[in-house]
């Protein structure tokens, strides 16, 4: 049986998230510099020119809505309120007044329109343009009212609206800087951009005019710290040492082994939070031997995801029962009755059904050939460790797994050609709509890396996008999870936890449930 060893811990952590810190009644200390660290430079500080969301954007830009760090509900940020039309094809936002961009220009409906027009324009070709779905145009209703109009309802829009891809940028700065905007970014956030030394650091300073922080902050004004530095240190070990030495104040996402050690030592405060990522074994349904659903199910039953989380990921992960990680909107707890439980007997029975017989050394064989397949993965330490654990588990069920490591761009190009039996990779997104990219037939052969085509699944994925009613939408994803667990194009493995350390003198920093660092209340007590 698959157990949920870490899940209660997770819930406790979630519950504790909001209650963390709290410096008491005295006025918070002002001034000082906060330094945090990440592993690589963002390609650009222009959200329309980056393929992934990044903390370097999140600290200086703001979105129309955000998510409450305590409840996880959508709450106002740059928009004060919003209204969804009855047919779900238009959302009207009332905008906050008195907000200024870092360059002094006013934030208004025209700025929102300019930003979204730029995001979806063919000329910009923004990687994040897909996240606005069926958005056809943005209308300025009046100076502080803006309406997003969709060709058909696009239910995941709120999950997107809070992501820095959809942050509101200063149209004046874009016009002025042109192609160099990405190195001279202008937003409305609590910190404003100051300097970028590529591959070394990004420096921000306090935005003294800031007075429009979302309601989940205690601070109603500008940040308490004067300066924020994001250091870029590519080597994991050096990053940890720089933190332990005190050069770095905040270390988000410590590597699992160091995280375990530092949690044991208890020298530094930490916050452990779930992530919206999911790691899975994708099986190419067009390629023998995994083109046989019985073989895919047998593989699923041979895998023990508890062990994957506990051994390969140092216990800093939650086993996954569904392709949708438990932290992602759309996850359905009832999925456990359809999950591929670890059951080697069942696995062998399924293989027997598919014509395999135990051969020499316990290997399952058919027509004299042993059952074996090859998994491709990145040469990332955690992926390799997971692959090795899977190899051992599958061997116990008579299945031979070969592991091949590849550099990411090569892996993605080769899976497009369908030359792989299986891949081991991860995704991360807060909404179940992400599965559209991995299973819809229109995404062949690029992101539908398992080459899976099923009209029923196509329909469910489309319904998931167009069903605005939340309860009905959840039903759609329930159905989808059942189908995917029966057909097993993926064996879901684990969703990693993130352990975020900080120095004891840094107080009142929070992470929301998607792992975003919130710094408006942050103080440095020495």
């Amino acid at each position, binding site marked *: 049986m698959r157990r949920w060893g870490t899940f209660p811990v997770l819930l406790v952590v979630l519950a504790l998230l909001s209650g963390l810190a709290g410096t008491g009644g005295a006025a918070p200390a002002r001034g000082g510099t906060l330094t945090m660290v990440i592993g*690589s*430079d963002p*390609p*650009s500080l*222009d959200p329309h*020119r980056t*393929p*992934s969301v990044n903390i370097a954007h999140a600290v200086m830009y703001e979105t129309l809505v955000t998510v409450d760090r305590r409840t996880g509900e959508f709450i106002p940020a740059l928009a004060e309120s919003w209204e969804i039309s009855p047919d779900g094809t238009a959302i009207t936002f009332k905008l906050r007044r008195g907000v200024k961009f870092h360059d002094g220009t006013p934030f208004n409906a025209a700025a929102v329109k300019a930003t979204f027009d730029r995001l979806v324009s*063919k000329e910009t*070709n923004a*990687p*994040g*343009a*897909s*996240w606005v779905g069926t958005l056809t145009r943005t209308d300025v209703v009046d100076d502080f009212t803006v309406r997003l109009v969709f060709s058909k309802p696009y239910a995941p829009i709120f999950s997107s609206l809070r992501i820095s891809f959809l942050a509101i940028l200063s149209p004046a700065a874009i016009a002025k800087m042109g*192609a*160099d905007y*990405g*190195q001279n970014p202008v937003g409305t956030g609590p910190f404003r951009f100051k300097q970028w*030394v*590529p*591959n*070394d*650091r990004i420096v921000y300073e306090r935005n003294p005019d800031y007075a429009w922080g979302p309601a989940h902050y205690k601070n109603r004004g500008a940040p308490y710290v004067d300066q924020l530095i994001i*250091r*870029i*240190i*590519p*080597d994991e*070990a*050096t*990053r940890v*040492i*720089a933190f*332990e*030495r005190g*050069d770095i104040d905040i270390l988000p996402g410590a590597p699992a082994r160091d995280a375990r050690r530092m949690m044991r030592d208890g020298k530094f405060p930490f916050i452990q939070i779930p992530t919206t990522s999911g790691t899975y074994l994708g099986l190419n349904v067009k390629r023998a031997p995994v083109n046989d659903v019985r073989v895919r199910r047998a593989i699923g039953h041979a895998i023990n995801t508890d062990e994957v989380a506990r051994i390969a990921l140092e216990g800093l992960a939650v086993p996954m029962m569904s392709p949708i990680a438990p932290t992602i909107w759309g996850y359905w707890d009832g999925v456990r009755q359809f999950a591929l439980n670890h059951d080697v007997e069942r696995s062998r029975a399924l293989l027997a059904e598919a014509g395999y017989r135990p051969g020499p050394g316990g290997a399952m064989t058919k027509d004299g050939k042993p059952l074996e397949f090859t998994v491709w993965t990145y040469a990332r330490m955690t992926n390799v460790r997971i692959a090795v654990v899977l190899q051992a588990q599958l061997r116990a069920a008579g299945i031979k797994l070969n592991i091949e490591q590849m*550099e*990411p*761009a*090569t892996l*993605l*190009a*080769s899976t497009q050609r369908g030359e792989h039996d299986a891949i081991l990779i991860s*995704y991360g997104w807060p909404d179940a709509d992400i599965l559209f*990219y991995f299973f819809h037939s229109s995404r062949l052969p*690029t*992101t539908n890396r398992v080459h899976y085509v099923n009209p029923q699944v196509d329909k469910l994925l489309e319904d998931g996008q167009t069903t605005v009613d939340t309860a009905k939408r959840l039903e759609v994803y329930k159905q989808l999870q059942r189908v995917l667990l029966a057909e097993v194009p993926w064996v879901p493995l684990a969703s990693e936890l993130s352990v975020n350390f900080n120095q004891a003198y840094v107080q009142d920093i929070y992470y929301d449930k998607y792992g975003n660092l919130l710094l408006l209340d942050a103080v440095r007590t020495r």
Partner: protein
Amino acid sequence: MLRYVVRRLLHLVPVLLGISFLVFLLVHLVPGDPVRVMLADAGSPEQVERMRHQLGLDRPLHVQYVSFVVRAAQGDFGRSIHTRRPVAHEIGFRIPYTVRMAVAATLVAVAMGVVLGAIAAIHHQSPLDYGTMVVALAGVSLPNFWLGLVLILIFSLYLRWLPPAGADSWLHLILPAITLGTSSSAIIARLTRSSMLEVLRQDYVRTARAKGVGPRRLVYRHALKNAMIPVVSIVGMQFASLLGGAVIVETVFGWPGIGRLAVDAIFTRDIPVIQAVVLVAAVIFVFTNLLVDLLYGLLDPRIRYA
């Protein structure tokens, strides 16, 4: 001499053309494409096609290559596909850091290497000789990432003398320079030793000794200078390769050098950056070698350039 220099510089043209053509072919032969990396999972097939067109990647290969050569000849390397910064800026920004690191590492390498090599040669077949050569062997064998991390552990974490990462001050330069310099110093030490041994066996050394030249003067004045010719050429090679970037050391110490730029560019298939970095490295290599050849003349007046 001037004619020699000009002729050597003219050699650069076919060298650069050849290298740029090879790199261009290689980048296009390797699977993976910059547009897919840039657009990530969400990019639709239409978006991919559009971006390809915007970047001119949908043109035939020979057209792309010719247009690259024509623009590069005018000093225009275009913009990086990944960061959209001008490539000249990406490289120009990092060159001072890379030069600083290469010079510091070379100084460490030469200081340690020549001294160790000379000591070993003078005390030939003594415990001192064997000891230094064991140290040299260890120096060549230690992987940079390991040595770097050990130095960080000792000097940054336990002793707290030096910062582990960054590039703000000369303090940040010490650990990476020692890490990089150690492996080169070992090579230089071995070369200095064998070259010195050879020189010490020469007739003129015996003559000098017979004339009553003191041991110190003999080594510094007569032997070492003449033993330096092969050493200078290897130092030049090492220096040139350091200028092309030292990926591992840059990664471990978070140093914003050319090496990391090159590797990041390869991972994202950022063709304009890869091309430009390779060309710059080639130019640096040719220039350093030329400089080394000119240095020979200073060390040995018998060498003439024609």
